[in-house]
């Protein structure tokens, strides 16, 4: 494909992660959204949040497990135990608490992790188990009626850290480009963009001059440091933002990256976009490399 904007000859470096999907439904979209947003809140980066989570897509009544409105949510973590812990506390604090909601497993996997398995004890002995097909469900009496949750959900290997970096002349156009990109992959299955609104402005590099920090600002992409450090930016770049994409498989991430870049290049704003690049650590840390040029072929 021929792009109107410059594509840097570089690659995005991504990591092996563990992922799980859950489906949250509620009486209406509003309350499903409250639950989903609450659950995926403070889940931008595994560095401090323990998990990277986001809304994957909206569920229509036709496909949602109980015929109500809902959202599908993906959670990514570096280890099974972290994923297990985060899932349990988040479902317990954000969905069990949220009026009218129910939560279901969103995927099958060889390995199952607990969803409602321990939450059921909230029922204090009044919880009722129902096994339907191969799955077990728990019905926990709560003040608005009952909370329905599936006992466990699947866990699969996944990839986190796919990304594109947008280099623009100014902040307005950079943000606009990012929004366009995010919108384009909003309903794409199997991927999420965990950062606020899908966009991150604090790209990072490994290490710091301070011993206690393992990461620090990605100075190569900071416009203000262009003349101070070895920079990757050209003179006309006034703002850089990154979109981080986690996906279940390599293909999913590639599709998302391609869709996002295409969306930007088709948009009116593309004139002010200097280039699209990608973040990596020299290929030493991650197990996956996504070459932008190859993706766009």
């Amino acid at each position, binding site marked *: 494909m021929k792009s109107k904007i410059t594509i840097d000859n570089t690659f995005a470096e991504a990591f092996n992660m563990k992922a799980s999907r859950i489906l949250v439904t509620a009486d209406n979209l509003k309350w499903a959204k409250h639950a989903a947003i609450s659950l995926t809140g403070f889940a931008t980066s595994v560095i401090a949040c323990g998990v990277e989570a986001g809304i994957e897509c909206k569920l229509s009544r036709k496909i949602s497990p109980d*015929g109500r409105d809902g959202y599908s949510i993906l959670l990514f973590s570096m280890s099974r135990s972290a994923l297990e812990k985060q899932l349990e506390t988040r479902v317990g604090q954000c969905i069990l608490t949220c009026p*009218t909601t*129910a939560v279901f497993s969103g995927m099958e996997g060889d390995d199952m992790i607990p969803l409602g398995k321990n939450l059921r004890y909230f029922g204090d002995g*009044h919880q*009722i188990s*129902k096994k*339907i*097909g191969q799955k077990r469900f728990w019905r926990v009496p709560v003040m608005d*009626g*009952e909370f329905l949750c599936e006992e466990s959900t699947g866990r699969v290997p996944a990839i986190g850290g796919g990304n594109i970096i947008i280099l623009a002349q100014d902040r307005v156009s950079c943000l606009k480009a990012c929004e366009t990109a995010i919108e384009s992959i909003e309903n794409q299955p199997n991927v999420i963009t965990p950062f606020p609104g899908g966009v991150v402005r604090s790209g990072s590099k490994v290490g710091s001059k301070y011993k206690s920090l393992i990461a620090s600002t990605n100075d190569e992409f900071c416009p203000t440091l262009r003349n101070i450090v070895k920079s990757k930016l050209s003179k006309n770049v006034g703002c850089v933002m990154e979109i981080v994409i986690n996906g279940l498989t390599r293909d999913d991430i590639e599709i998302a990256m391609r869709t996002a870049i295409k969306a930007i290049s088709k948009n009116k704003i593309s004139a002010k976009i200097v280039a699209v690049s990608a973040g990596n650590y020299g290929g030493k840390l991650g197990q996956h490399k996504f070459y932008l040029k190859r993706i766009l072929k």
Partner: protein
Amino acid sequence: MSHLTLKPKIKFKFRLDLNSISSFQSMSVNRVKTLPLMYGNKEVRYKDLFKITGTDSLNIVIKSSNEMMDNVGKNFIRGNLSVHGNVGHCCGSEMKGGKITIFGNALNRVASGISGGILRVNGNCGDYLCGKSNHKNEGINDGLVIITGNAGDYAIQRMRRGIVIVKGNVGKNCCTEIISGTVIITGQLGKNFANKIKRGTFILKESKFTKNYTKSNVCEYNFMPFLVKHLNQLSQDKILSLKSFQRFNSHKTASNLSELFLIR
């Protein structure tokens, strides 16, 4: 590939034990044709009694069946089996997976000791539906059983898990000694319903046994829309429609985990 089809060549005089149908899937068609089978006190081969056509042993069809055929789908594990006509005793007994559909009536002990899969009878069935099989201490242990017609006496005894749906009426002594599970009956109930149960969910139209329970407050049950949708999907048919339910709980002899939903 075309469905493996069996059609009786003769009118059966004696009861036939057809439990070996469930082992067809691991066999070639020629092996099926020569598989031994007892007819009366003589050993015969399948091809002596049935006209066998087709090759796809994952999809088995029995045509013009009759109530002399016992143990149809016993120990069934995977694939599809459809039976056009009536079947005898113990149909789908100890079934573990796959899907069996009967277009006709069945005799006693349908789905006894079933522990997985979907069994559907588009017709009536006899006594001891979903009960204890000869080799088990408990009744239905899992799976989905749908009877579109009526069921006889002693249905669904000692159920442990799974879902049973009877669209017609059931006879007396139904659902005794249930440990747990979900039972949906949209017809009339006979005498003595749900004695000595432990837990379990009943979804019923008939209200005469609600006296054994305490009435719950009116509220929303998130489980119900889910169950309704799930069942309709599985049965590919509108088994239940999303109506409002009145819940009753804690059967007088059972724990407070037992419940009854009355379809309003």
